[in-house]
């Protein structure tokens, strides 16, 4: 369940979005997130939604998969919506009973925030659904390449990220196993105050840590055996290449984002 979240959830089909250069996808996602938070009018938000819709449509990823990505933060969205609704005080009250007063502006703000958060999550999970972890880290490596000039270990960082993504499901499985093993020995994780519960976690963390070190040891032997000697003399199976696809995607996205920025500027300076 938890291991399907966010990472390693690559959706293996061949599509327009899958074939985009990971660097372009990374940049687009960052711009998309910025655009979401710039949008304060319904028109601008609609433009964001349109962009997201394009992304999903051309990715051939099942819509349910994209929608499901909201699930882990659904609680957060609802929780913040309730708070916004109750404590946003500006505007004219449309509903009031007992000590609760809900204004029209509060409703607007609540919906705006909920839509923004959902789109943010869907947009970024579209990235991980259509990009393999290695392509993603290759993209990050390539984007960070200028930092090599100041001796920043870009290749190593990318490798570490890729290995971390690879081991998340393995270590989650291991955690489940250790929890069950400790429960079978009579460990109690559910009762007691916070301190007692934190203490109860120790018998999980220590075996997990030891096992992680053991795995790291074996992994380093396996990497040595497979001739790993660092980034020098290394080639890549998938050369990153910006193609006409990326140009089209960038062109469409930048147009939509330009619209959002103009919309924002017009809202700030109504005189223009």
């Amino acid at each position, binding site marked *: 369940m938890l291991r399907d979240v966010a990472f390693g959830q690559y959706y293996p089909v061949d599509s327009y979005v899958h074939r985009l250069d990971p660097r372009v996808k990374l940049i687009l996602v960052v711009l998309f997130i910025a655009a979401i938070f710039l949008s304060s009018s319904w028109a601008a938000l609609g433009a964001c939604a349109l962009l997201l819709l394009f992304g999903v449509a051309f990715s051939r990823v099942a819509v349910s998969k994209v929608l499901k990505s909201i699930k882990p933060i659904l609680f957060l969205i609802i929780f913040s919506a309730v708070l916004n609704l109750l404590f946003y005080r500006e505007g004219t009250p449309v509903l009031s009973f007992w000590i609760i007063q809900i204004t029209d502006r509060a409703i607007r703000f609540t919906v705006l925030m909920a839509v923004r958060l959902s789109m943010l999550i869907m947009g970024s999970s579209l990235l991980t659904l259509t990009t393999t972890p*290695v392509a993603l880290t290759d993209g990050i490596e390539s984007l960070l390449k200028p930092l090599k000039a100041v001796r920043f270990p870009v290749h190593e960082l990318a490798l570490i990220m890729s290995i971390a*993504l690879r081991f998340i499901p*393995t270590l989650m499985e291991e955690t489940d196993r250790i929890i069950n093993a400790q429960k079978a020995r009579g460990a109690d994780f559910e009762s007691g105050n916070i301190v007692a519960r934190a203490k109860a976690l120790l018998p999980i963390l220590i075996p997990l840590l030891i096992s992680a070190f053991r*795995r790291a040891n*074996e992994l380093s032997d*396996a990497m040595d055996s*497979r001739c*790993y000697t660092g980034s020098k*003399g*290394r080639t890549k199976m998938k050369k990153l290449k910006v193609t006409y696809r990326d140009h089209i995607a960038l062109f469409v996205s930048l147009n939509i984002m330009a619209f959002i920025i103009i919309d924002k500027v017009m809202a700030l300076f109504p005189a223009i």
Partner: protein
Amino acid sequence: MEAIRFDNVTFRYNQTGDLRPPEEVLTDFGPSDYAVRGISFSIQKGEFVAILGHNGSGKSTVAKLMNGLLFPEKGTITVFGMSTRELEKLFEIRKRVGIVFQNPDNQMIATIVEDDIAFGPENIGIEPDEISRRVDWALRCVGMEGYRMASSFRLSGGQKQRIAIAGVLAIQPQVLVLDESTAMLDPLGRKEVLDVVKSLNKQQGMTVVLITHFMEEASLADRIIVLNDGEKVLEGTPRQVFSRYDYLKSIGLSVPFAAKVARILKDKGVPIEADVLTTEELFERICQLL
């Protein structure tokens, strides 16, 4: 042609952090401190050799000595004419000797199968198109063509181990060393992996070193080397080795089921030769008696 040669190899894990030369330290330790003691053997190109031994007998240490993950304290290890001690040759040696380890989960670098298999060829600087061809070829060798874009954590144990083998094959080594690579698998997964190994040896002439403590697996080999407490105690064809039932038992090993049955029958006075390896063979011999 000789692929791997061990000459009087001795090795011990440095548990003391002692920096003195090994000759001096030698006197401080008893022989039991050594994981490998004075082992010599030679493996020819194209051979299928099994290494047998109980837990802690030094099998994994021997494997890691073969491609310079560990260096001998005394003696020499020669791989295709290169000593593992020459650091500048190490890369060439590792290109020729690939090791598959016990736990597939701890050998995969990437989440997606094709990225993981590409890791080795990328390290030795192969051109992108050729890497892609090698990934296809390696997947075909292990019978997993359809899994190129699969996520490794959704595969079964046997499938994962076959991907680990493919990851080593993609480097196109001359020698494939499997260090208890079937130990964590169920009988079906074990069979999958062994079938792959057998066909690599028979069809492509790959030199195979199979480290195991399953006797049935060892009986597939051309030759068996038996280790006990860091020493080589027996070497010969499976028939020769498994005919030493009492000796093997005394060092904590057994023999294949069929050999055991034949041996018991022989002890009971049945006129049967005890050097059988498979149950089919045993069945035939018993039929001949009737």
